[in-house]
């Protein structure tokens, strides 16, 4: 039936796609852009709408920045230590204090303060909106259903797609950075809040009702406190996401650490980018320690030991320490971080990069060097897949994808895939190399598929190992955390050093970037297999290998599928970065569209990326839900929708130069 329908479509539209089948999104966007540029100064929409908001946001950030400067660096260290000690305990406090010190030592104190100020404002807004909306969507399924599409779109959309509209509406500087960050992190905040609240077991909520609690009492006395750990984790994640995007806000003229990384990238000065990247990790660590809270046991001990007198003494001591530190900072070199403290890694990093470039590109025994690996990948993997996809008539591809979706994921998913791909056929802007958006979409798809396969091939064994060995997992966890916080373009620099320019470095950067969720979710799935189940298998005489293949992997399959889903979305989110280093196709279209002010082209390419995301996301999510695993059977109940956590993190940066 699909085939018949498709042939009919093909008759109507022909191949290549008929010219009348065109949504004219690009031209429309371009005209909007023109209108905005013309009317920015005098139209009421700006005078009474966007401009006051922009001013307000700018003032907030500036105020924070002034406050940070006022406390000086010793004061800030003291403040961080005192707050972290109260919230998360002494050890966390020392780590956080050390991290602040390191930021100074890396020589990026000023830009780091800008980043922190942007973060404070953005996160405050995200939480002020996200927590109430999250509560609402946990308690009102209808609200959740209605907002789902909007949140999905916000999360899947590459940040580029709204970064530039933000600039158009809010002008350049802090305000578009804050707005883009809020748009980016808000869905996660809402979803994680709602997910945390829904995670509170019904039987506990019933206790409230059974005691005659009002809805409000149930929320305040049961649901929120029981969900507290999950909510804190959500806040933590939200902060991570926000940090990722604040960094790329460099592209719209918001200074900060992102600007440093970008500058390093533009001059191929890996050392500079590396220092700034480290500082970003340090900021992430500080923010994490400030919000992590104590582990359960320590928290209880803390609460039990804390008499009112002791609390008061701690308060006074903490406040005293901060004041003394501020005064000391004012007296000592007027508060600027002393240049004599310097542990920048600029020079050693640059030396390593140079050595690699000189020695590894060709002539390495057996593997032949990075150049040969790159050529091999292109000739034997990328090109065949791309040619296959681009040389097929468009309707064949759509039918194929839809049929696969129908068989593996059901009718609704198939319909979503078909519609998403049909939308792409209606985009007519000339893509890179004069090809249409459809051709570029297929090209990008080939790169995404290769990157995803490589990612999963690496993530699976590591994840399995991490799932089986507590020690290994503990060892790689900090690395995974760091990988997720580092802006993707920091990886890009050494990768270019090794592989020159082309599709392969883009793929490698995406693979590195997309590894953590695959590894994490695989490990998680394996760890969540109940020990009794494994014991039962062992008592039946199963070998370790049999336990792995017959018990752990099948039960972890659902989690692994979610990992696959996350991996795909991560890879898609760096498509634009791949475009920067020669990945071509949609990524280049977006970059070109934004830098050359051809917003129409950029937006059409962005829509195509979203369409790809819809297809791959829907399909893999349906697979994950269809699989029976540790998360239990889904019979009779609506399947829990996989929540997105990582996702389109720090996208991209954009070479404005």
């Amino acid at each position, binding site marked *: 039936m699909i085939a018949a329908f498709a042939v009919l479509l093909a008759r109507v539209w022909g191949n290549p796609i008929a010219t009348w089948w065109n949504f004219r999104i690009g031209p429309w966007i371009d005209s909007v852009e023109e209108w905005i540029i013309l009317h920015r100064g005098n139209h009421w929409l700006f005078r009474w709408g966007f401009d006051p908001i922009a001013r307000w946001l700018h003032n907030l950030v500036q105020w924070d920045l002034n406050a940070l400067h006022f406390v000086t660096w010793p004061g800030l260290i003291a403040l961080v230590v005192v707050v972290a000690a109260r919230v998360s305990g002494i050890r966390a406090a020392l780590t956080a204090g050390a991290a602040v010190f390191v930021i100074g030592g890396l020589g990026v104190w000023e830009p780091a303060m800008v980043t922190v100020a942007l973060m404070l404002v953005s996160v405050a807004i995200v939480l002020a909106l996200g927590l109430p909306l999250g509560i609402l969507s946990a308690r009102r399924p209808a609200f959740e259903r209605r907002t789902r599409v909007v949140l999905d779109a916000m999360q899947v959309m590459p940040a580029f797609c709204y970064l530039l509209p933000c600039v158009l509406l809010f002008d350049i500087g802090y305000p578009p950075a804050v707005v883009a960050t809020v748009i980016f992190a808000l869905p996660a905040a809402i979803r994680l809040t709602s997910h945390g609240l829904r995670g509170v077991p019904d039987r506990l909520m019933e*206790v409230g009702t*059974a*005691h005659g609690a009002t809805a409000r*009492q149930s929320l305040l*006395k049961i649901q929120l*406190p*029981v969900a507290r750990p999950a909510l804190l984790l959500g806040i933590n994640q939200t902060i991570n996401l926000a940090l990722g995007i604040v960094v790329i806000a460099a592209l719209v003229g918001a200074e900060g650490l992102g600007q440093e990384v970008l500058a390093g990238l533009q001059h191929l000065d890996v050392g500079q980018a590396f220092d700034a990247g480290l500082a970003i990790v340090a900021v992430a660590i500080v923010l994490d320690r400030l919000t992590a809270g104590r582990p359960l046991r320590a928290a209880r001990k803390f609460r039990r030991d804390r008499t009112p007198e002791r609390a008061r003494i701690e308060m006074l001591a903490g406040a005293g320490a901060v004041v003394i530190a501020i005064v000391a900072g004012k007296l000592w070199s007027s508060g600027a971080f002393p240049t004599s403290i310097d542990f920048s890694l600029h020079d050693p990093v640059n030396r390593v990069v140079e050595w690699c470039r000189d020695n590894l590109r060709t002539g390495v025994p057996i593997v032949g060097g990075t150049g040969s690996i790159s050529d091999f990948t292109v000739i034997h993997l990328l090109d065949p897949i791309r040619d296959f996809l681009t040389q097929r008539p468009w309707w064949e591809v759509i039918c194929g994808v839809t049929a696969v979706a129908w068989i593996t994921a059901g009718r609704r998913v198939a319909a979503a895939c078909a519609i998403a791909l049909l939308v792409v056929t209606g985009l007519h802007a000339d893509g890179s190399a004069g090809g249409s958006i459809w051709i570029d979409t297929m090209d990008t798809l080939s790169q995404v598929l290769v990157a995803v396969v490589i990612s999963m091939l690496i993530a699976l064994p590591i994840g399995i190992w991490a799932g089986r060995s507590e020690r290994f997992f503990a060892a790689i966890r900090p690395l995974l955390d760091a990988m997720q916080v580092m802006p993707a373009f920091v990886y890009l620099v050494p990768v270019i050093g090794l592989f020159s320019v082309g599709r392969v470095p883009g793929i490698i950067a995406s693979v590195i970037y997309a590894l953590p969720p695959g590894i994490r979710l695989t490990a998680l799935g394996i760890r969540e297999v109940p020990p009794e189940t494994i014991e039962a298998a062992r008592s039946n005489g199963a070998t370790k290998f049999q336990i792995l293949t017959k018990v752990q992997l099948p039960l972890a399959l659902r989690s692994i599928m979610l990992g696959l889903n996350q991996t795909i979305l991560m890879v898609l989110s760096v498509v634009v970065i791949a475009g920067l280093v020669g990945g071509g196709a949609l990524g280049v279209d977006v970059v070109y569209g934004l830098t050359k002010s051809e917003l129409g082209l950029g937006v059409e390419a962005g829509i195509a990326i979203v369409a790809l995301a819809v297809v791959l996301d829907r399909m893999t999510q349906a697979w994950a839900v269809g699989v029976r695993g540790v998360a239990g059977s889904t019979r009779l109940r609506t399947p829990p929708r996989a929540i997105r956590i990582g996702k389109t993190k720090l996208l991209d940066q954009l070479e404005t130069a």
Partner: protein
Amino acid sequence: MTTTSGTETTTGSLPASEATSADTPTISCRGVWKVFGPHPERVVGSADADLPRAELEARTGCVAAVRDVSFDVAAGRVFVVMGLSGSGKSTLVRCLSRLIEPTAGDVLIDGDDTAHCSAQWLRDLRRDRVSMVFQHFGLLPHRRVLDNVAFGLEVQGKSKSERHARAGDMLDLVGLSGLGDSYPDELSGGMQQRVGLARALANDPEILLFDEPFSALDPLIRRDMQDEVARLQRELKKTVVFITHDLHEALKLGDEIAIMRDGRFVQVGTPEAVVAHPVDDYVRDFVRDVPREHVLTAGGIMRAPVDGEETAGTVTETTLVSDLLPIVVESERPVAVLDGDGRVSGAVDRLIVLRALAEDD
């Protein structure tokens, strides 16, 4: 099919002593139904309702968890509902305080109809008059034991000092003095359920609902907890509905037992009546392993007295058969049975006792 309608069975087998209390029963269920699924009201009372559950689900997409259940519980009595898992016990007990809204039927508490009443009225009912003890304890993990026990009082808006004092008393009552500062997960299962019990008692309700409170506990601890509940019940005289799937528990605690199957009451009666005269194979299966001599009483198995017969001694109607055995083993003569006022109301002899023990009707 021996299934009788709930209403008939209940009124038919009410023990005389209870039927005499003329005032309104504390809990009264009239034809209560609970059907889960789409358009549940269509199932109630229709021909579909009598279908086995798989067929009903296939035809209507509905699960009839409770079907036409009626019963009364008088003040201070313990009413036990027994049945296999999935027979609808939890649903039924939740209908009593409308934690689950019945699809049809009336639930009266002290004669007040709980249908059509305001949300506030229901809240007050749950705050002041009805408490529940849960199978999975339902303790709030983020609260200390003391604050868990005080939860109901907190919800009522009692002051901190007042509710802590009361919660402390409750902990003493259930034997957990001094553990108020612990967190629930630091206690053993048995202790956790004691906390659950203390919490249910804290607002001094007149009705206590237990939903398989001890199923999750080890057998030895379970027995302790049963003794504890029996002791508290002697002291506090609450009106209790107790759900269990353990017959020994039912016999130990219940003044009256209802056996539930597929949402219906198949038999309601005193422990002795259920053990002595199971109405069908389902009930018979339940009572098969019960040592009958520990449940059956002289009053339950006696025949009418014959004027002038010689007796080997006297026992009372409540004497257990296990205590009768040595007497009838000693003598072939019948034993006279005296009622509460000391008059002869019947007699038992060796044959009657043997038949009662062997009987498998």
